[in-house]
């Protein structure tokens, strides 16, 4: 009897251990990739924090998003990013209809998880499943139940190619949700995955000893929760220009505190790695609904990264109507130097749009193409 009990307890503890330490399957980096065709002036529209819930009037919301994605120049963009918290207290029907709506636009779109997306009337895997089934979504997860060896769900990337020529990368990561009931950060294994994504198609197996500006193709990175560097950059801007929203080629309209993610158990920092590889030129985040920034961050390195708080793109939960809209990125095929002698790899525009307006013509709050 005692042996039986011992075996049972042993089996249970083993199950517990295997459950917590399995870490998932390692997949080839190719499994996380989608190829799309590059075109001159490729435009990416970043939509943040839609917060679609059981209280949302979906017809009204979709009518607004339909106008919003055209608010840059009256045309549909080449790519749409739903950058986290698209859903909050939603149900399966809302997810289905939202995916169907974005499919109906006929534009490839990406989805990243925010901290609220899994707080709905569905299993933790439902959104993952629907995004994988979607016709126009480029969302990738090599394991349909999310069991790869990379923490989080939405870690994948898009290669923009002209024939066989790789022009740009769009990288999407899961900034995770909570740790110790506070916001989580990007995990060490995700930083390693990011390195693999940058190295893919580069002709390098590992980071070369000397990385030049043109060693790797340029990339945009999107995830939901800002990193602590956002706070550093914003504080520095505010200290230097306390009365300005715009100074030279930087924009800083910050109306709430910065709730960045920190996890004391993580040793790797995504921004340090970005600066080592000199590929990613901007990080687009969401999460804080009334903060909009485009700040150049150097930190201890010499590779400037644009820290971009995109615009809240819906009337769900708290917002300010005058800064509700979308961020539009226009990717350049080769860099230019702006009037402040900074290298520019893409142009950025913040466009605000109201719910009740007839046309899709928005108000431009910030545009880098002016410099």
């Amino acid at each position, binding site marked *: 009897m005692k042996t039986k009990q011992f075996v049972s307890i042993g089996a249970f503890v083993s199950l517990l251990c295997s459950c917590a330490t399995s870490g998932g399957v390692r997949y080839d980096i190719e499994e996380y990739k989608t190829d799309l065709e590059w075109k001159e002036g490729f435009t990416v529209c970043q939509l943040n924090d839609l917060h679609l819930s059981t209280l949302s009037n979906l017809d009204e919301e979709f009518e607004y998003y339909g106008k919003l994605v055209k608010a840059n120049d009256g045309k549909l963009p080449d790519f749409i990013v739903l950058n986290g918290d698209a859903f909050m207290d939603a149900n399966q029907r809302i997810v289905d209809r939202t995916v169907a709506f974005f499919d109906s636009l006929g534009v490839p779109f990406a989805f990243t998880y925010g901290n609220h997306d899994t*707080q709905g009337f569905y299993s933790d895997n439902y959104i993952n499943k629907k995004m994988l089934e979607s016709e126009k979504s480029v969302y990738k997860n090599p394991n349909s139940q999310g069991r790869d060896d990379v923490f989080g769900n939405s870690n994948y990337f898009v290669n923009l190619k002209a024939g066989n020529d790789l022009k740009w990368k769009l990288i999407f990561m899961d900034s995770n949700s909570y740790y110790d009931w506070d916001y989580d950060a990007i995990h060490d294994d995700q930083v390693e995955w990011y390195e693999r994504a940058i190295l893919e198609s580069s002709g390098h197996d590992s980071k070369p000893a000397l990385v030049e500006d043109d060693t790797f193709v340029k990339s945009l990175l999107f995830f939901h929760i800002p990193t602590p560097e956002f706070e550093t950059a914003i504080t520095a801007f505010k200290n230097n220009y306390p009365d300005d929203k715009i100074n030279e080629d930087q924009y800083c309209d910050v109306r709430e505190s910065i709730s960045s993610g920190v996890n004391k158990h993580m040793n790797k920092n995504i921004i340090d790695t970005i600066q080592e590889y000199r590929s990613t030129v901007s990080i687009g985040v969401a999460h804080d609904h009334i903060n909009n920034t485009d700040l150049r961050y150097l930190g201890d390195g010499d590779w400037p990264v644009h820290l971009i708080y995109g615009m809240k793109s819906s009337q769900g*939960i708290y917002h300010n109507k005058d800064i509700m809209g979308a961020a539009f990125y226009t990717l350049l095929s080769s860099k230019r130097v702006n009037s402040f002698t900074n290298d520019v790899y893409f142009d950025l525009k913040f466009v605000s749009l109201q719910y009740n307006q007839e046309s899709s013509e928005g108000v431009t709050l910030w545009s880098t193409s002016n410099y």
Partner: protein
Amino acid sequence: MVDEQLLKKTKATKIVVFTLLFLVASIATFYGTRLTLPIITHYGRGTLTALPATFTFAIPLFTLIVLWQYSQTDTIGKRWRLNLIYSIVTITVATFNLIDLMLVLGLLYDWNLIVGVMTPIYPLDLILFNLIILAVGFASLFFTIANKKFKGSLETEGRVNISRGKHVLAGFFIAFATYFFGEALFGVIDIFEGFVDPNIVLVIPVYLAFLMLAVEAVVYVVYLYSPKESKLKRGLIGVITLLSISVLLFVWIVIGLTFNPYYFSESLQQEFAIGYSLKMPIGLFIIAAWVVIPSIVALIKFILRLNKSKKELKELEQNEQE
């Protein structure tokens, strides 16, 4: 002999009715509460849309509480008053909901009866539900008025008289028990979606803990207010068992957190959405406060009642000897 059979049948019917109502109330309370929460996060916007759903989903819980009170009330006059209260509340709620739904239909949905969003055939389902509630309310009201002669009746049916405060407390307890039972039932959704949570071994004790509250409610209701000593003794054994299971589950959860500190945020965000929204460890607090603490309180109560019952028995024996 016939009476005994009738008693057995009545008891069985009571168990079936209460079990079914508890299941319906659990699903409705959980879903209704979660539909109501966005009103807070949306700063009151959408109140007009959400309130009819909130109130409709609260009706099964209200019915369960009233029915339990009905079964525990000691005079026929009090039961008559409960009938009246139930009728008035259901008629008022259904009328309010129907007016609200008409406003929502006219103002937001262009008189389109099937919009979806909350449920696949919302708001048509809510309109139909409220018409049924209204019919039940009126039927109950007519029945109550027709039996006006019982209004002030003091005729008793041998039940233990429970104070109003305890009735209110029990109402809250039932509400929490149904919510968490509904939450545990909701966990089954993974199976329907063919999804096996990688943290399943760690998640199981949380769901079991949610179910514990309902089991505790049953022990409270069935045993604690029973005048029989044998039932009290059985209740005490039940409570000790429940307390042991609760502590075991709590330890299982805590050990689970040391194995994977992320499993709450990975697998239980929906269940502890309020805590995550407030960035407070309400999840663990809920499990400790609503599962372990009621077991301890129940244990103390059972011991006190049992002692009281023994004392009364001793006094009775002494009196008889004298």
